[in-house]
């Protein structure tokens, strides 16, 4: 198993290197520069700025230098916010995104998985139709509709919760619900599908023929296999919740990573774009590795190799 993890981490490193290289080339190929602005800058000053950030060197050399810095954990200065480094920006905003993301994910699992199990066990009854139509609506409704809707109802009409900002626990509720409900819908459908597949297996009939009661069939015989689709989705979901939260972060004015991502792209803040891309890619790689480990633990037919 250690060998498997080491190998996968090595593979992950290669993936990250590839992503870094591609992003670097794409950013460099984008027209314009981080230093162009509406105000005309004297050519000498511009040259000085470019020299400071290393933009006067050829592309290959810049790549090697920046890669060397990244390997030492330094993503470089922000090209737009002159007095901050990319690492500082990440250190400030990443914990916010992690907090929002993990609460949303927890909410998604707590709501989605039991709803999916219930729907599968009571299939073709209202206990199936109701959660499944709600989840269909949840998948179809984008977060930029759900977010303002929740803010309108609970913030402006009922005046129960704050609609924007990031100052205390009550500020987490609406954004986490907006994000969580969306993924809860996915988890519900995936869990229902997985459980239904298990419940239709021949060995469920064998268990019934042994006199095993239905609840034991669900918990003991079906849950392990039935959760596999949902667990497989957990990796992309976590990465998506943390990175994809930029819509929600914008709606609710939360100082998280997502906002920085958007701002960095719009500002052509090359170093920040690169840093954030590598961070997200690393998260996806690590989550997928964790998911693979959990899958092997759940399914005895899978082996580490």
């Amino acid at each position, binding site marked *: 198993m250690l060998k498997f993890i080491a190998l996968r981490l090595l593979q992950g490193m290669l993936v990250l290197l590839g992503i870094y290289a591609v992003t670097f080339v794409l950013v460099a190929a984008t027209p314009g520069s981080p230093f162009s602005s509406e105000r005309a800058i004297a050519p000498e000053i511009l040259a000085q700025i470019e020299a400071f950030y290393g933009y006067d060197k050829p592309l290959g050399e810049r790549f090697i230098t920046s890669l060397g810095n990244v390997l030492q954990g330094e993503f470089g200065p922000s090209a737009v916010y002159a007095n901050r480094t990319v690492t500082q920006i990440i250190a400030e905003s990443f914990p916010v995104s992690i907090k929002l993301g993990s609460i949303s994910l927890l909410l998604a699992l707590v709501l989605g998985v039991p709803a999916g199990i219930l729907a599968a066990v009571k299939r073709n009854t209202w206990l199936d139709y109701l959660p499944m139509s709600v989840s269909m609506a949840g998948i179809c409704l984008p977060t930029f509709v759900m977010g303002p809707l929740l803010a309108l109802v609970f913030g402006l009409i009922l005046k129960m919760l704050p609609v924007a900002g990031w100052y205390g626990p009550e500020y987490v509720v609406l954004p986490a619900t907006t994000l969580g409900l969306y993924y809860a819908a996915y988890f519900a459908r995936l869990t229902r599908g997985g459980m239904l597949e298990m419940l239709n*297996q*021949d*060995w469920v*009939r*064998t*268990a*019934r*023929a*042994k*006199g*095993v*009661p239905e609840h034991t069939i669900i918990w*003991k*015989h079906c849950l*392990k*296999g039935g959760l596999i689709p949902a667990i497989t989705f957990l990796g992309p979901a976590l990465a998506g919740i943390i990175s994809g939260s930029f819509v929600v972060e914008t709606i609710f004015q939360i100082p998280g990573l997502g906002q920085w991502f958007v701002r960095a792209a719009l500002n052509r803040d090359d170093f920040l774009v690169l840093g954030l891309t590598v961070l997200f890619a690393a998260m996806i790689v690590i989550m997928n590795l964790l998911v693979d480990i959990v899958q092997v633990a*759940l*399914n*005895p*037919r899978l082996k580490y190799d």
Partner: protein
Amino acid sequence: MPLLDVDDLTTYFHTRDGVVRAVDGVSFNLERGETLGIVGESGSGKSVTCYSLMRLIPEPPGRIERGTAMFDGRDLLQMSPKELRKVRGDKISMIFQDPMTSLNPYLRISTQLIEALQMHRDIDSKAALNKAIEALEEVGIPGASKRVFSYPHEFSGGMRQRVMIAMALITEPDLLIADEPTTALDVTVQAQIMEIIKQRQNDLGTAVILVTHDLGVVAGSCDKVLVMYGGREMESGSADQIFYRPRHPYTRALQKTIPSLQEKGQELFTIPGLPPDVSKPIHGCAFHPRCPYPKIGSPEGERPQLEDIEPGHCWAACGFCDSSAPIETVLAKADDHVAEPVDGDA
């Protein structure tokens, strides 16, 4: 009193395309320790008969329409789910056709083996595990004390069916229902599995219902035989009666298809046509469209009534054909008739 007395068992499936009459008024009984063979082609209702007894029919769309199945003095078909659970796996066990899919791939063999014991007996897990190892040894699995902790995918098909047998018999049930236990296995393994079932039956005195379409297996191991076709009983009797004095044209035709009874080098005999479509009502005799015997009268009419020929031997007395002659004469005489394409859906 017989151990199991089934009367007029009728199971329909109510589908969107109509009512499928999978089992239509089947009756039989079984004494303790006896073996009953249920034979017939695919789709003749053999498996559904067994599942109905265990109440394992998915409801809906399936429904047991009528009939009784008295097991040890109690009607299986009227039991509450709770009572049923007490019977299943304890008094009646079942083995299934496909050992590759009948064991849970996510659970260890040990877990699955002792499940029935834990459910039905007051036994601690250590004693249960010992019993499980013993059960595996009895069905001839080498290194049972280690292999009991394996997962199903670490066993071959034949070994898995042995595990199924061990699992079914671990509670020493009064009745074992074996639904085509050898169909999905290699020919070489088939004989071994039948041998194990027979041997365990002798050890424990279990009655067995053996569903199969292998008449050779029936001849070798059954006391009684029930011949089914189109969800109906065609003929039933002791193995001797069915094999030496078959009365129904279908039984006779079925026997003609046993490969080992046919002359070497000759093309194997098959019954032309297809089994009837049980989603449409069957008038008269279900076998009529494929029957090689000379027909008399119209095929429409009353369903043939079961009639005793001799004690313990009855047949669905068909009046739509002249079945007095042995089948060989008929087949020899009416070679062209057999060669004609026959519409099985009629």
